[in-house]
Structures are given as C-alpha cells and as structure tokens.
C-alpha cells in the first residue's frame, strides 16, 4: 500500500481511527460525520466483520453509498440493508446491556481525564457560549466498553478541566470515580485521535503516544492548554495510504462535506510530509 501524496488533516485522522476498527466488534457511531466515515473505512479495508449501530437503532447496515448531503444517518440510504431497525431506546438499552463495544465521538473540549464538553464554554451559571448538548454521546461515553474521541489538535480543546462535563470520561480521575457515579464497571475513554496525535490513558490520565510525521511532539504540546502525559516512546503514526484516501473520496464522503471541512492539507514533497494549503 503506497503512501498518499496529498490529503487533508481530517482525512489523516479518519485513517488513524479506521485502523483501530476491529473485526467482531460493534461500533456505536454518534451522529455521523467523521466517526461514521472512519468506521466505514475500517470495515471496508481492515475489519469486514466489524458492525455498527446508529443512534436511531439501525443495526449492521450495508448503506447505499454515497449518503445524501447531511444525511449520514436517519435516512433510507444510511439504514439500508440493515439486520434490524430499532429506535434510539433500543440502541441505548442494548448499550446498557453491554452489546456496544466501542463508541466513536466528536467533541468541543476534552480534559486530562477524558471528560467531554459539548454543552457550554465559559461559566455555565454566568457568561458562557452555548452549544448543542451531549446528544447521544453521553450514553456512548457511559456504556460502550471503550470510546474513541476524535477532535482537532487545538489549544482551546485540550484543557485541564472541561467547563461542563457533557459526557463522562474518568471524571475526577480517581479510581472508581465512574462506578461511584453509577456508571457501568470497566468502561471508559480509550483513545483520543487528532490529525496530529494519538493519546491513550495511563492511570486515567491522558497520555500522548503517537505523533503524525509532519509534526513534532513539541508542536502537539504547544496545541494543548493543559499538558498531557507523554509516553516514554512516542510512536510515529503511519500516514494515510493512497488506497485509504481514494476510498474516502470516491466511495464514502464523495461530496467532501466531512473530509474537506477542516484541517490543512499535508503534502509529500518527495522527502517528507509538509503542511501546505
């Protein structure tokens, strides 16, 4: 598989997540957008026996691609050839039962313990900017066995403590904090993926474990308001392959609404990847 010569940063993040998709696991996909496209890419190339479930209860579809604009779920093409059609409650309850292995999420803000804010920036009881709320992410973050968070590598997004916990990470980071709050045992954040970096958690604290070849660890830490732990060896993320980006562009997000929506372009200049436009 040859390396891709030009791709957007958002495409890079989707390829990173696609490679995390595992056969025989269920993915509860929030909302659509990058989590859904990452799952579809992973299923297409690496894990054909991975299955996904949408918030409106579509179980294991074979969607009719490409999706219509803005309709990556709650439409006939996205629900097509499913094995079952349920509702938000059937999806939510099956997650409570432990049937959902992995949830993939987006967010505005994440903190050192993996808590997610999609509700309000600023002081909730005072001056703040309001956002849409958790949607399905709260249940995904609570009930899936693992969660993968996709976001951009921006200083304002990586904070010590989110202004509002919309969806739970490890809460205050103490052992058993989730269980004390009534959340299911053995669950919690697993990875954070940005176009530049991959993180895991060590003792429930965010830890940088890999960087994209076109940035340094220092670049990444400069885009963190609160510094994460850094692994002793920070791996280099394999860049997207030509095959991956071709599938993303030709089969999945053919209108480019998701992949082009953010991030700079990365170009192979013959020797190395450089950030371009």
């Amino acid at each position, binding site marked *: 598989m040859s390396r891709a010569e030009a791709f957007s940063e958002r495409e890079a993040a989707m390829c990173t997540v696609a490679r995390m998709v595992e056969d025989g696991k269920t993915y509860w996909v929030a909302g659509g957008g990058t989590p859904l496209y990452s799952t579809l890419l992973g299923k297409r190339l690496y894990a054909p026996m991975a299955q996904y479930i*949408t*918030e*409106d*209860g*579509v179980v294991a579809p074979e969607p*009719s691609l490409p999706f*219509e*604009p*803005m*309709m990556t779920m*709650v*439409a*006939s*093409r996205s*629900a*097509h*050839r499913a094995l079952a*059609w*349920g*509702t*938000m*409650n059937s*999806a*939510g309850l099956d*997650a*409570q039962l432990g049937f959902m292995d992995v949830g993939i999420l987006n967010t505005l803000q994440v903190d050192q313990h993996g808590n997610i804010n999609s*509700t309000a920036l600023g002081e*909730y009881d005072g001056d703040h*900017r*309001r*956002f*849409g*709320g*958790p*949607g*399905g*992410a*709260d*249940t995904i*973050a*609570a*009930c899936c066995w693992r969660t993968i968070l996709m976001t951009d590598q921006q200083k304002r997004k990586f904070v010590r403590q989110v202004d*509002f*916990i*919309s*969806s*739970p990470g490890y*809460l205050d980071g103490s052992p058993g*904090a*989730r*269980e*004390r*709050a*009534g*959340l*299911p045992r053995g669950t919690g954040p697993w990875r954070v993926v940005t176009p530049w970096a991959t993180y895991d958690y060590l003792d429930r604290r965010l830890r940088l474990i890999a960087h994209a070849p076109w940035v340094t660890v220092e670049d990444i830490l400069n885009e963190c308001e609160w510094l994460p732990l850094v692994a002793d060896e920070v791996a280099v993320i394999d860049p997207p392959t030509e095959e991956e980006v071709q599938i993303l562009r030709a089969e999945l997000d053919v209108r480019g609404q998701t992949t082009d929506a953010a991030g700079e372009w990365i170009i192979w200049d013959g020797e190395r990847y450089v950030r371009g436009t």
Partner: protein
Amino acid sequence: MTSVDSPHRALKVLEAGEGAFHPVDVDGFREWVRDHKDRSLTPRLMTEREAVERFVDDGDYLAYDCNYIMRGPNSLLNEIIRQKKKELWLCGKFTYVDVSLLVGAGVANRIDCGFFIAAPNVQRGVRDGSVTIHEYSNVIMTLRLRAGAMGVSFLPVRSFGGTTGFVHSGARLIEDPYTGDPTVVVPALNPDVAIVHVNQADIYGNARVFGTGIAHVESALASRKVIISAEEIIDTEEIRRNPGLTSIPYYAVDAVVEAPHGAYPGTCPGYYSSDSAAVMEIFQAIRSDTVGEYIEKWITPFETHAEMLHARVGVAKLLELRSQESIREGYHP
C-alpha cells in the same frame, strides 16, 4: 443464591440534580387517561388547524422527534407557529434546527436538552433569561419518555452519572435497592402533548411507522394529548389485516391529520427524500439569525401545509423528491 442486600435499611439519596422538571404524577396521568382518552372507535380525523387548536395549549410540554430530518411532524409544528402558541416547553432530544425556529417564533421558551443547534437566538435567550434550558441527553430523554409510557414515576439508567448535566437536571443518584450500588434514576416524563408523524394511520389513530425512529411509540403512550399526522390514511380493514404492523394503538391517540409530505423538507424514508436546499435554507436562517424572515416566507403566509407545498414547492419538486427516494425496501410491507 440471593443477592447480599440487606432489605430493611433505608436507601440513601447520594446526590440530587437541582434542575426543574416536568412534574411527576403517575396517578394523575392515569386519571387523565381514564377521563379524556377515547377507547371507542370514534373517528378522530381532523384538519391540522383543528387538531392544534384543540390539543395544543399555551404552556404545554411538547414532545416530537427528528423534525426537519426524518419523518418529522413538520406540518404540525408549522401550524403551532401559525397559531402563535406560547411558552411551550420542548423535549429537545435528537432535534436539529427546530428548537431555534420555535424559540424564534416566540412559541417556546424552555427546553429539556438532549441535542439541538444552539443558534444565535437561543444563545441570546439564554443570556437574557427569556429561554431556560435543562440538561439531559438524547437517550436520557427517551428513557424518561419510556418511563412515562410504562406508567411508572422513574427509571434507573446506566448513563448520565457524573456529568454536569446531572447537576442541572432532575436526576438522582440513589443506593440501588438490590445491590446497594450507586444508581442513577431519572424522573418519568409525561408530556402534555405529543405530535408524531407516521407513515399510515386509520381514522381512529391506529398508526404504523416503518423504519427507525427515536421515541415515537413512547411519546404517544406517555403524553396526555396525542396528535398523529400521517402520510396516508388507510382503511381500518387494512389495519385488521396485519395487526402486527400497528405501532401505536388508537386509544392513545386524540387526533389524526392527513398530511402527505408532512415531513417536508425532511425525508420520510421510503416515501420521499429530503429537499436539501430547503433544509439548508432553514439551517442558514437560524445561523444568520433571520428566523423571522424564514417564518414569513415558509409558514405564516399559508393557511395549511398543503397550501405551502403548492405555493412554495410545487408538484414537480415533490415528484422529484419521491423519485429520488429510490430505496423502498422495508418501508412498504
């Protein structure tokens, strides 16, 4: 083999959210059902105007699903705007642009939040105190509706604990009566009124929904007043031919409105696709804070949804949307 609980101790309430919530009154709801829900096979077919006039009151808690996206009750929502209802409290789960539209139209000022686009007018309302938001999530709101549809006052849930939303909600963290473990419970929701768009219904309200959904059955069973809008009115004979397809039984339903293309500009899967340009137009209107102009263009000039479809959309476009919806498998059983 029994669990190790000690049954006679008191159960501690470990934490309690401070948010206001629609009052929990299961016996009051039962009495409403007894006194107001018609268990006869009496025709309930009426116009959207009559249905909204009779069954949506100022101050009501309103439940609906997915408007402007999939099988939303848009014809009824628009009629609510035309009738200038006031101070509605919205069940804002799995919503999209419609919360901003209803706030901008001056009909809603309180929202239980699962998800909605917090457009400028909502932001402004929160800042100046004219709009109140209570915090939940999509699933928590649908489970609150499910509790309401089960006739019980609360349900234990496995999410929502530990969030800031919990603090601003009606949830409680109690000791589980069986395991003693900390367990989140949420209050049942019995909305005053639910509006539900379905594929088919008979004149009594026996309703069929094809495809996925959010909480349409729960909303119908949990709500004091229920208005169904249907793409197609079908014979009761047809309902009786396959009772397994009935999603909502007639006795939960107060009004049935015939509403072909009732979900426009959203999709009714298997029937017609979204009008993407029209959806983008409302999206842009809420983003650019021009909801008033949108309403003056799309809603208030018309007496009915059908009139709007005729004047603003036209036959060619409607047929095109039907034609675009090439997937029919599963929606015409």
